[in-house]
């Protein structure tokens, strides 16, 4: 057992996978000598050499498109895109090819690649460095969209993603990269993609969240109990596609109330999907509207004002109180 930050845990998962399978490659801008702008690829070049940890020129679509070709040659590439806001440069390759390879060739070619994307705000970064594109990718069939919330599940899910037979968009909450440490077992762990987890058991209301917002959500749960005697259950989605709606339904059926929390924009976001699923299966259990505490339907402001945009524990508490008192 070691106490690792998320950066270290992700690094460990990649090293483990690369040691086990020579087909696993790492590619991206500055992932080699520089060890990644967030240092997530630390030591990979040293250990695996420039044939397996590959610095690329500056072109996101070529990183993804090239990785698709590498998949056809039997590799399992892990691509690092430096920031959320530059994943769009590669969007047409993901939409047009990575996600379609299996279906259109009837399984003759597949795309077992991982696209690692540091996402989200809260680190006082310049424009285009604090985006939340997860709903955009979750809407595309053929991808898995995974979003860990802590070092331990990050490591397990990245391993799963690397060995997944289908393409995985792996969002890394950059605000959590070094925010806290967690015990991580010595042996590689896996976690199935598509399963949520109960981050906190409770009975009065269900708070559904993921990624960076989970911290604020947990904080809110504490406060709800301490200050308002409300016992909140917190669900950490971990995977946005597929979405583990069974776990959500179970929890909502138990509590009758829910709030969904994420930092990307509300309109057509993941929160809406959670609500729609609950309505489809569990409407009659609902005792109050499900609220969404999210980033607003604006571009995330430049960082001086970003804290006004990002949901904090207070907004979650407020929504939960309104829901309980409905």
């Amino acid at each position: 057992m070691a106490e690792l930050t998320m950066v270290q845990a992700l690094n460990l998962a990649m090293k483990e996978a690369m040691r086990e399978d020579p087909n696993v490659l790492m590619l991206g801008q500055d992932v080699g000598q520089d060890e990644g702008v967030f240092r997530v690829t630390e030591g990979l070049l040293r250990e695996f050499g420039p044939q397996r940890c590959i610095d690329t020129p500056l072109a996101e679509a070529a990183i993804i498109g090239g990785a698709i070709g590498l998949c056809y040659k039997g590799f399992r590439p892990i691509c690092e895109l430096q920031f959320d806001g530059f994943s769009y440069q590669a969007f047409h390759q993901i939409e047009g090819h990575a996600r379609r390879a299996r279906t259109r060739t009837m399984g003759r070619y597949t795309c077992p690649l991982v696209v690692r994307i540091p996402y989200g705000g809260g680190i006082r970064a310049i424009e285009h460095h604090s985006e939340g594109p997860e709903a955009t990718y979750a809407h595309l069939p053929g991808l898995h969209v995974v979003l860990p919330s802590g070092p331990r599940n990050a490591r397990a899910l990245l391993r799963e993603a690397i060995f997944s037979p289908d393409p995985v968009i792996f969002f890394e909450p950059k605000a959590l990269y070094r925010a806290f440490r967690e015990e991580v077992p010595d042996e590689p762990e896996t976690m199935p993609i598509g399963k949520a987890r109960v981050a906190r058991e409770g009975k009065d209301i269900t708070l559904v969240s993921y990624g960076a917002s989970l911290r604020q959500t947990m904080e809110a749960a504490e406060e709800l109990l301490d200050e308002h005697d409300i016992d909140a259950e917190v669900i950490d989605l971990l995977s946005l596609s597929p979405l583990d709606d069974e776990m959500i339904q179970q929890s909502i059926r138990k509590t009758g109330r829910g709030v969904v929390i994420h930092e990307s924009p509300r309109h057509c976001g993941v929160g809406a999907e959670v609500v729609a699923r609950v309505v489809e299966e569990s409407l009659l259990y609902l005792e109050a509207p499900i609220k969404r505490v999210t980033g607003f339907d604006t571009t995330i402001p430049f960082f001086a004002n970003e804290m006004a945009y990002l949901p904090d524990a207070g907004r979650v508490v407020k929504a939960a109180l309104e829901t309980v008192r409905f």
Partner: protein
Amino acid sequence: MPRETIQIPRRIESLSILPYEGELDTELEPKIPDNDLRRLYKTMLSSRKFDERCLLLQRIGKIGTYGPTKGQEAASLGPMYAIGNDDWFVPSFRETAAMLWRGWPMSKILLWWGGNEIGASPPEGVNDLPICVPVASQCQYAMGIAWGCKLRQDGAVCVAFVGDGGTSEGDFHEALNFAAVYQAPLVMVVQNNQWAISIPRERQTRSKTIAQKAIAYGMDGFQVDGNDILAMIVATQEAVEKARNGGGPTLIEAQTYRLGMHTTADDPTKYRSEEEVKKWEPRDPLPRFRKYLKSKKLLDDKVEKVIEEEIDGLLEQAIAEYDQYEKDPYYMFKGMYAEMTPALRRQMAELREYVEGGESSEKPRGSYSRVL
């Protein structure tokens, strides 16, 4: 410095061997076994006849919109002669002749144009990718494949195709740049058929040739008479050999012409003149190649008749196979992931219940069942 002209250490050459007027340049003529020449000819003719038939099949609604390849057969077929089955072939969407050479059953190609995924599933035994619709997007995975060949050190090369219009897309640029940086064994053939739908080559880009775009990436460029199968073979063989020996990628511009419409949804008379088409007809790669074979006594009327009949037989057989193909409305769910997700299982059940009536009391119905 202070002020000097910069010398570019890259070869941009042009090549043509087979005349459409005048004499054959025997010095440049490649030595190709007679049998191979005949096989090449047969493939080219198959492609032409397949093309003609597809236009008919589209007209009677048996297949959907179709993009003919008439006039461009040599440009895609020649390069295929330069590679083996272990090499990689990445088509755009006008490489029917190449696909037939590589062993794609005609029925599969028909099924693609008929709207069936099976048509995008490459035959076993060759390392081919299917038709690619988003223009130039294939350049990227072609680059990735070539890069993979280099990493695997398996001696394989990748020959990929794109149109003149496709050279304007960012994907083309990024892919060639990567290929050059990694010295990946990629041969990128631009089928410059002078048009991108209604946009003529000169308004697609201001560079005098497409071959010279290679200079931007520090690679060699080759402008080849794309209606000359011998020139296409020679140029690709050189590029393939260089690539195999670690010499990196090459850009080949095949100068050809789309004799037909862009697709069956297109009306080329809206944007180009009859005279222009007429001007290109004498350069049609098929009669040029036929003339060559005849001059070498490899073809006579009798042999031609035999070949034609054989092709006609294959065509009928392909159409029969096409007709027999049973489409599966549930494939969309089953083929999506290695394992169906719970949502897809539910949705498949939803559709099944709807189409087949399920246990509900509603009568089975749906527009889909009407077209089944």
